[in-house]
């Protein structure tokens, strides 16, 4: 197993160097999004409006964090099942998204979009939130606070471990 260190956002050259099953330690900025945030993003695109984040520069992390205790950097953080986002993902990729992190398999449509557009999907292990918390530098609500755990959070991470699933 090869281990690489990368700083986000990844550029096309970074993605082309990766191979399936490589372990990658990612540092930089992640934006969380689950079902509700995906639905809103796709509705905005379909209405022809501008998204409040630049998908080409965005690493999307399928995650709903728990609230941080006062004095802590973050609460519990980890991936949710990616396939629930499959219905929304191709349109996000068509609009610039290139890097996704979650858990589990993707649909054939998503895998095709990943290949056609030179995107990459990383898997992060679920159920290791305390361990992952050691790799979180900061966590703040970025957008749609009213969605609670389904809001978009901006996370700064240091050497967070993921594995290349498809590219």
């Amino acid at each position: 197993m090869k281990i690489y260190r990368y700083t986000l956002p990844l550029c096309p050259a970074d993605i082309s160097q990766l191979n399936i099953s490589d372990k990658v330690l990612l540092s930089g900025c992640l934006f969380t999004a689950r079902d509700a945030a995906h639905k809103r993003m796709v509705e905005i695109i379909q209405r022809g409006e501008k998204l409040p984040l630049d998908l080409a520069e965005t690493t999307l992390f399928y995650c709903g964090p728990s609230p941080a205790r006062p004095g802590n950097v973050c609460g519990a953080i980890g991936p949710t099942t990616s396939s629930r986002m499959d219905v929304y993902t191709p349109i996000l990729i068509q609009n610039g998204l290139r890097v996704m992190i979650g858990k589990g398999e993707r649909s054939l449509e998503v895998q095709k979009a990943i290949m056609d557009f030179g995107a990459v999907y990383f898997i992060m292990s679920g159920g290791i939130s305390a361990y992952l918390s050691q790799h979180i530098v900061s966590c703040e609500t970025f957008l749609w606070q009213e969605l609670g755990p389904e809001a978009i959070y901006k996370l700064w991470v240091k050497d967070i471990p993921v594995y290349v699933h498809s590219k």
Partner: protein
Amino acid sequence: MAYRYVSCETIESELANAIKYITFTPDPELPALLKNALANETGEISKDILNCMLKNIELAPKIEIPLCQDTGTLVVFAEIGNQCIIEGPPLPEIINETLIKVSKELYLRPSIVKDPLLQRENTGNNAPAIVHISIIKGDTIKLQIDQKGGGAENMSRLQMFTPSASSEDIKNFVVETVTLAGGNACPPLIIGIGIGGNFETCALLAKKAILRPLSKKNPLKEYAVLEQEILESVNATGIGVQGLGGKTNALAVHILTAPCHIASLPVAVNLQCHSHRHIEIII
């Protein structure tokens, strides 16, 4: 008949301690099973992640960050003795009030929506819990408490087989279920299988089967053998830890059965992720 009175404060306090404990500490036998899986595993990524899981179990109670951000639906199987009287509101109300309080104290993620289809508005406090009550003989209250995450629950399945079905058919159904689940259910899994009863009973049996102590064998030899066969078949799929390839897809298979109709053979498979958070308390 002599009755024993139990105050709602006693139940609240015992339950609050139990929820706090399982938020940061998994089944006490889980680390040994993970270590054993690690020793037998050949998949590089599976080994790497098993190590992270063991580190997570050590770290969570020390830093009081939940084992998993999905602290799930709280499921409670309550067995109430027929000589026991609870002073205060009905038990489900006590459980929900405690859950709301503890969720706030522990900063648990609110993971429950009010309506499953319309609006899907978050209740904001993890209530309501799912409570199954049965009345037993005696003067004690037994609570089996389970924090059940959504990922593995989503990949669970139920099939109404008919009496011609064999053990092999059931085994194939389980293997098909974990194969469809892949990494979504966060393997390595604990697989609960309910056989018999009717449509709703076999699902309850499957959930209850998950809660059996991991080192406890099925008391019926035939089912103990079937559990072992299913475990071996599931681990031979190559799905591995988190679906990333390896020998470790499940750590245990538990079967629970009940009598059923002459026309039926219901089978439910309830998947439990590796973050196996449950406890039993007796009050």
